């Protein structure tokens, strides 16, 4: 089976609009959560989020009207990742894009409905459909970089990016491509996006405190993470700088409740990812948890981690406490955090932590980063719908 490596990463999120800034923020334990600034935010019950602020993307002004924010984030993160990977021209059908998003161009839906329902207009922008379609970010990345192989979007709520990366890994392993641009993008922070989440009563009014007593729920974030996955022999042959190995992936379904998590199923996903990566539990030096900060997830995930790793498991943190829960992009932002641990020997913390919860008895890295030599990492994503997707990266 072909080994797959990471040769480029890029990101836009509430902490920073590139990888060096994001690495620095994660290492400092900075929190990107703040008051929401978009239109009609004053009509929301929950008014905090991890927004991408001061957004002035370096994108072609002639093309910008075609891009919902979900596409803009993907293109800017993608440009950073592609510059880092420095791929040769002419990959053609040997390179593709698989990108996750949960809500696609939700702001574009909102704008068009506002126009016809609230403002009484009789027409909407002709660019509405190409802006809002879920595959717009993946397609624009393919257009921008001339990638003509497998290109598609993956939508599985909070696990979208992990599923996308897993499928990208499988494309390369199976020989269907040599290079896959992957990750996720999300721009859910608009009035309708937050209003929909409010109804589930799971959003925190203050901040996100995963695994901590006093946690009040999740905080939505925006942004994109884009990673360049490449067959190892392809990367080595061209002398590319290799950041890490994409060691393994597994996905499974609870086939139970549509929203409530299932710890046994989550444990099975982690065990299967370890097996796929040919790793033992004790090889894992850092686990980036799904860690949403809800009562239900954090309890269930803690039980699942203990089931897989026993009472003396690896260091765990949830970086959602800093970049927010970027829903369909979150797995990609967390992959960037995993690469910080693997390449810089820095385990990013869970910030906002107040006190240990006996229901979440883990080796939690809280408040400040921990220096640690990390050989391999696991990153969890557990979605509504009972979908679990776990990815493993290994040091090279």
């Amino acid at each position, binding site marked *: 089976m072909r080994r797959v490596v990471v040769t480029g990463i890029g990101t836009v999120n509430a902490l920073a609009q590139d990888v060096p800034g994001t690495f620095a923020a994660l290492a400092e334990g900075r929190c990107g959560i703040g008051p929401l600034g978009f239109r009609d935010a004053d009509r929301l*019950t929950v008014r905090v989020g991890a927004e991408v602020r001061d957004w002035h993307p370096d994108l072609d002004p002639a093309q910008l009207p075609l891009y919902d924010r979900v596409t803009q984030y993907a293109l800017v993160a993608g440009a950073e990742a592609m510059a880092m990977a420095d791929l040769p021209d002419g990959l053609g059908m040997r390179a593709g894009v698989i990108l996750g998003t949960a809500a696609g161009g939700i702001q574009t839906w909102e704008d068009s409905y506002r126009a016809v329902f609230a403002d009484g207009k009789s027409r909407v922008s002709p660019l509405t459909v190409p802006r809002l379609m879920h595959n717009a970010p993946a397609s624009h990345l393919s257009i921008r970089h001339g990638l003509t192989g497998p290109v598609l979007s993956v939508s599985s709520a909070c696990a979208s990016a992990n599923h996308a990366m897993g499928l990208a890994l499988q494309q390369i392993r199976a020989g269907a491509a040599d290079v896959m641009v992957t990750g996720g993008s999300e721009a859910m922070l608009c009035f309708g996006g937050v209003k929909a989440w409010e*109804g*589930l*009563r*799971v959003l*925190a*009014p203050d901040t996100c405190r995963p695994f901590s007593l006093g*946690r*009040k*729920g999740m905080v939505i974030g925006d942004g994109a993470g884009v990673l360049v996955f490449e067959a190892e022999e392809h990367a080595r042959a061209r002398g590319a700088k290799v950041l890490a190995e994409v060691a393994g992936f597994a996905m499974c379904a609870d086939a139970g*409740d*549509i*929203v*409530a998590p299932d710890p046994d199923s989550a444990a099975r996903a982690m065990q299967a990812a370890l097996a796929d990566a040919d790793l033992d539990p004790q090889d894992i030096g850092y686990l980036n948890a799904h860690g949403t*900060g*809800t*009562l*239900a997830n954090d309890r269930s995930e803690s039980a699942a981690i203990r089931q897989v790793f026993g009472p003396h498991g690896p260091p765990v943190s949830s970086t959602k406490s800093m970049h927010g829960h970027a829903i369909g992009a979150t797995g990609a932002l967390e992959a960037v955090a995993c690469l910080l641990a693997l390449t810089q020997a820095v385990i990013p913390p869970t910030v906002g932590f107040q006190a240990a919860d006996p229901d979440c008895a883990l080796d939690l890295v809280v408040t400040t980063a921990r220096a640690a030599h990390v050989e391999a990492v696991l990153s969890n994503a557990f979605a509504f719908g009972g979908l679990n997707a776990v990815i493993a990266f290994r040091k090279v």
Partner: protein
Amino acid sequence: MIPRADIEAAVIAILAKELLLPPAEIALDARIEDLGLDSLGKVEAIFALEERFGITIPFNANEPDQPDFDFVSVPGIVAGVERLLAQAPA
């Protein structure tokens, strides 16, 4: 002011609809956990109460002790709705 009996009847009707039970099977002192209402049923019932009475219920599923709104029993919900109605601008 809405009589307490009317609030009780509305609370029971809303819970009955979520639980697919005849309202007569829900006792006036029933506990929500004993009724078997799941988490989505709970947020749907809260939404229905808000729409029925024109109130905003400060309920967060992540706070186990539910400091802002007691959703543990029928009397707790009725008292909570009464309190919010009394606070609501006329």
